[in-house]
């Protein structure tokens, strides 16, 4: 994915970045720097007034999540409760909600296929749940996050925008999600991760962009990584 000059008045200005296949790129910055807003704009939840986005070399104008999903771009929201999970419904429904056309089409409902696929994903992501028909709100935070990830994995996306993917999650699930991210990167997917945990950024990313006050202040390569370097850029001189 390549982004150039993305601007949304009041939120961020002239954001240019890139994520190559197989890369995990971090987006660091203080709270309020505009990182979530950038991700939301890329995904089609927030509007933007200027800028261009390319995925796999194809330019696209993103107006809604449907657009981005169609191009293989997905986003894991920062606020799981608000944007991630659908409380009253089952784990199974939560997982398949982004790709219903794979299971319900032409007036037929491929029930067994749906169950198989969901169970396969849940096993792969190590989701701990009594059954895939359990209400998702009964799961722990970490498991809910895995279900949300599963729902995006079912899309087989090219680029993943992850907004604080391990916030508020127990250590075990955190480790599993990190492992998963590395696996996905190895599979050739591109990941752009927003995180406020400096150790996580330094440990997981190939490159880190640092934002402050709506602008990208700098880009750090692996050999330049350090928590001080990140903070220095984030505080913004």
């Amino acid at each position, binding site marked *: 994915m390549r982004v150039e000059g993305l601007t949304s008045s009041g939120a961020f200005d002239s954001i240019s970045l890139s994520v190559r296949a197989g890369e995990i790129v971090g987006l660091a910055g203080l709270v309020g720097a505009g990182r979530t807003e950038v991700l939301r704009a890329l995904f089609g939840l927030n509007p933007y007034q200027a800028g261009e986005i390319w995925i796999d070399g194809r330019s696209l104008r993103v107006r809604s999540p449907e657009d981005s999903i169609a191009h293989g771009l997905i986003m894991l929201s920062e606020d799981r409760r608000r944007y991630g999970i*659908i409380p009253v419904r089952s784990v199974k*429904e939560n997982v398949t909600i982004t790709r219903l056309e794979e299971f319900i089409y032409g007036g037929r409902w491929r029930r067994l296929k749906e169950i198989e696929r969901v169970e396969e994903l849940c096993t792969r992501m190590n989701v701990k749940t009594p059954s895939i028909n359990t209400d998702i709100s009964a799961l*722990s935070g970490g498991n809910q996050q895995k279900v949300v990830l599963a729902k995006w994995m079912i899309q087989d996306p090219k680029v993943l925008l992850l907004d604080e993917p391990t916030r508020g999650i127990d250590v075990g699930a955190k480790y599993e999600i990190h492992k998963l991210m590395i696996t996905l990167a190895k599979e050739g997917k591109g990941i752009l991760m927003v995180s406020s945990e400096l150790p996580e950024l330094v440990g997981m990313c190939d490159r880190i962009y640092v934002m402050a006050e709506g602008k990208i202040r700098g880009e750090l390569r692996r050999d330049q990584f350090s928590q001080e370097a990140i903070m220095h850029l984030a505080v913004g001189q």
Partner: protein
Amino acid sequence: MSISSKGYSVVRRVIQRHGLLLVLVALFIISSVINKNFLSVRNLTNISRQISITTILAFGQTILIIPGMLDLSCGSVLALSGLLSVSLYKQTESLLLAFMVSIVIAVLCNFLNGLMVTRFRTPPFIATLAMLTMARGAALLYTNGQNIYQIGKYTVFGQGSLWIIPTPIIFFFLVGIVTWYILTHTRMGRSLYAIGGNEEAAIASGINVHKRKMQAYLVNGVLVGIAGVIFMSRVNAGLPNGAVGYEFEALTSAVIGGTSFSGGIGTAGGTVIGAFIVGILNNMMNLAGLNAYLQQVIRGAIIALAVIYDMYAKKMRTTRTLGSIEETQSA
């Protein structure tokens, strides 16, 4: 855990999962004890026929309540579309055209409902309340307040029968099947449940919320149109003032049937059970010779109780899930 407390929690779970059905069964039992004729085919058919129109409307409400909306206008729209349908029949002698016109008018009104709710971001309560008044006014305007009598063969819709099954019940059944199918076997249904569960998450999952909400209103329109035809056909006239208050009966059946205003919950089957519970209660009150006004008071009380229970059930759901999260975190 002792055996008796284990047994108790099993009973509790059964009640929670099948409470609705149990209430219906209990009503059946009580009714048949009070009235020897209750379980006769004739009586049950009567009850089914009486609830047909309301239940068709209730199916529409179910489809709307699940994604967090509702329709307060269905009684008025039913009257408007039914009235125009009767009028057209008298002019063209075509049952087919008359039937279609009712559907078209009702769908049009609901299209406007949908437009107000999606495009203009009007709360469904306000939008459909406005439509309630407009549709009623339009109906009265059309005939200048007069009724249309002598509807001839139009009666076949509501008073006819296929073999021994009265037509209203056939419509009831067909609409029920379609509603069930939409809710369980289509992407639209799944999307509506998702929107009701968490609209923002649904949007973030790529669901076109405006499109689905509009679809829900349009489907409701078809159902209201059908109800309109049956209604006019049964009262033997085109009544611009007909079906007043039907929206509340429809809502009652839906809510008692487990469709929750908190969104994302509800089924066609549940609505059927809710409708029968209401129908049997009405039947019981009639047989007991209760004053019609007193019956209305009781009906209102039932709606109130149903909604209060719905709120309670919602609170139970939230507390239970929070409790589970606390449990797993400490574990």
